[in-house]
């Protein structure tokens, strides 16, 4: 079975982002970028399935600027066999991403397509679901456990108040939650080897998908600064403040 894993280049989770000067987005100049942490979990799961002998090949795919090839090389260093880069310098929305991925699914015919449940930059949580809808594949979102059994996959989902286990018929789309696994560190020799693994570059026009936005970003603002806490002198004062100032009781 072939596994397709989608990865996204985002601002590194350790970077404290700040709004740019003209409120059109966050400052990106010379900011450290990295693979979206949920995508790392997706890559790890795919590589583990290959190590268990469930999968025979892991293909990583990304959509983004030229520099996004760094994230594909990371995926290759972590154990993916080859990579596909759909290159565009434009901003791509979830639906466009899903449409582009659908063309890759069509061409590659993977048994499983694994994505992060969301990217930490825009937090949309849409692409996996849209891809399932566009391709007609079954979907198992927010996965915390994945068990493949012949032509079926059991996915344990993190839902409000507990866990839900569903069984999907392959091919299927899975989106990863945090607890699915803990990604490994890339080894230095593997990073070197990854430089020589195959990486195909395609353009959205080759795939017949127009990169267009249906949403307009109006404004990006920093959240209001948090006010410091205060100490209250008595229970009565606390109740009074909760009632009359905070108006929560």
């Amino acid at each position: 079975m072939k596994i397709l894993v989608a990865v996204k280049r985002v601002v590194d989770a350790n970077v404290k982002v700040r709004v740019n000067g003209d409120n059109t987005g966050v400052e990106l100049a010379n900011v450290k970028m990295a693979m979206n942490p949920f995508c790392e979990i997706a890559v790890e799961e795919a590589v583990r399935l290959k190590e268990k002998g469930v999968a025979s090949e892991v293909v990583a795919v990304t959509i983004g600027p030229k520099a996004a090839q760094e994230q594909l090389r990371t995926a290759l260093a972590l154990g993916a066999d080859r990579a596909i880069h759909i290159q565009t310098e434009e901003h791509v929305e979830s639906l466009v991403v899903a449409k582009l991925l659908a063309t890759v699914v069509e061409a590659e015919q993977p048994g499983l397509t694994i994505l992060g449940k969301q990217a930490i930059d825009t937090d949309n949580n849409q692409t996996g679901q849209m891809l399932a809808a566009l391709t007609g594949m079954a979907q198992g979102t927010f996965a915390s456990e994945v068990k493949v059994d012949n032509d079926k996959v059991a996915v344990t989902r993190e839902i409000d108040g507990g866990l839900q286990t569903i069984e999907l018929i392959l091919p299927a789309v899975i989106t990863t939650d945090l607890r699915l696994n803990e990604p490994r560190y890339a080894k230095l020799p593997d990073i070197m080897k990854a430089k020589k693994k195959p990486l195909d570059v395609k353009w959205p026009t080759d795939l017949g998908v127009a990169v267009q936005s249906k949403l307009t970003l109006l404004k990006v603002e920093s959240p209001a600064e948090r006010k410091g806490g205060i100490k209250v002198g008595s229970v009565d004062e606390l109740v009074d403040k909760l009632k009359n100032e905070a108006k929560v009781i």
Partner: protein
Amino acid sequence: MDPRHPNHFQHTEREAMEFDVIIVGAGPAGLSAAIRLRQLANEAEHELSVCVIEKGSEVGAHILSGAVMDPCALSELISDWKAQGAPLNTPVTRDEFLFLTESKAIKLPAPPQMHNEGNYIISLGNLCRWLAEQAEAVGVEIFAGFAGAQVLYHEDGSVKGVATGDMGIAKDGSPGHNYEPGVELHARVTLFGEGCRGSLSKEVMESFKLREGADPQTYGIGIKELWEVDAAKHKPGKVIHSLGWPLEHSIYGGAFLYHLENNQVAVGFVVGLDYQNPWLSPFEEMQRFKLHPAIRPLFEGGRRVSYGARALSEGGIQSLPKLAFPGGALIGDSAGFLNVPRIKGSHCAIKSGMLAAEAAFEQFRSQSEGAITPDYTEALKASWLWKELHQARNLRPAFARWGLVGGVAYSALDTYLFRGKAPWTFHHHDDHTQLKSAADCPKIDYPKPDGKITFDRLSSVFLSAANHEESQPAHLRLKDESVPVAHNLKLYQAPEQRYCPAGVYEIVATEQDEPRLQINAQNCVHCKTCDIKDPTQNINWVVPEGGGGPNYPNM
């Protein structure tokens, strides 16, 4: 094995990789050495594998400098740097030199070393990012996120290479569930370009007694913030240096303000680490500096966007160690090439890297196997770099001898009358022996941060985006656990709480209400000041897991 190394527990066999040259640290020295080696190899059609490792999460993540750069060395390395898009975007247009009193700023004539015509205000981090691209284009392998944790030796004592640190270690030092052992990198030449007070450089200096015959190194700590200021107050290319307030005249130090592109201003403050009053806090001096009536207006209505700190070597040529040893050499600020009166070192770092590369390559041509000693001392002595450092050699120690006024007076004499050729050379002392007891020194009251122009340590560290994998053991090792309280607290009121610019060290009370030193290693911005200034050299800074530390953009 030495317990100072993160690899002191060896659970798994490490993989080994072979290269011709390993370079530790992707700073200006290391990257320039790598580029020069591959240039020479390409010209001579000589096979030569060059590998650079960098402990920062990416190239540039741990680079912090003013910085005004003299492009002379860069032009020697890559003559068409302008056409290649090097990020030297802001030529210096104006130099100001101020002497500050508490309420006044007196303009002094800028001494010739501080004339900056032809120089550029840059982000050294961004220059390194660009140098890394140039290096990869000529065939250098660069691995960021891998820390050089251990020096490896051949049986004959020559350096065999370095091992990268293990990843995924638990708090108690045992392997965690995603444990990944380090890798041994073997090479015929290992160049140490770790910057000031590199942890492996420190070790090889001891192993090969490289400091014998040299003065002790003397250091400074530089603390820097990057601001976005009101466009109306922004004058791209303007350079201001100041001496005097808020520092006592016995302390060597001063401030810089550089107007970069895009309404950015870099503000920095450097304090010589030979200061004697344990109450002194370089961080708070820096914050207080911004409140000076001549300085404050620049920051009003502005926004602080980044923060960081780094120690720098101020000893000059008196303090240069022997540079080469069997199997390797020290380059850049690992050796200590900063030119203090010019307040510049990046051009020196680049040049030293190039000289070491040329010396190494010559030996690769003549010697087909075995460890190489890339001794570039003679080439250095014949270069402009030596001349420049020789001229500058007496100015920093003059300040240590005679304080600010005497130092300025001597500098004028040395520069204008002797032109750097005075027939004497002043010497340095160790910084860590300089502290006087707290009881003998006046306590310093620093103003409380206002949250607009001045800040506390924690909100500052936040802006450095410093991060370390939580589960690992602290990378700041105490040789003797009792020293922080029994010695440092008793005698000096725990000076590590004040000289650390990142709030790593904190005296807290135990449950029995006894004082105890808490080490918040996660805050560390890798400046190395604690390793330098701790009075009994009880703190040993070792590399944490690769990728940890600050994530500086544009610094």
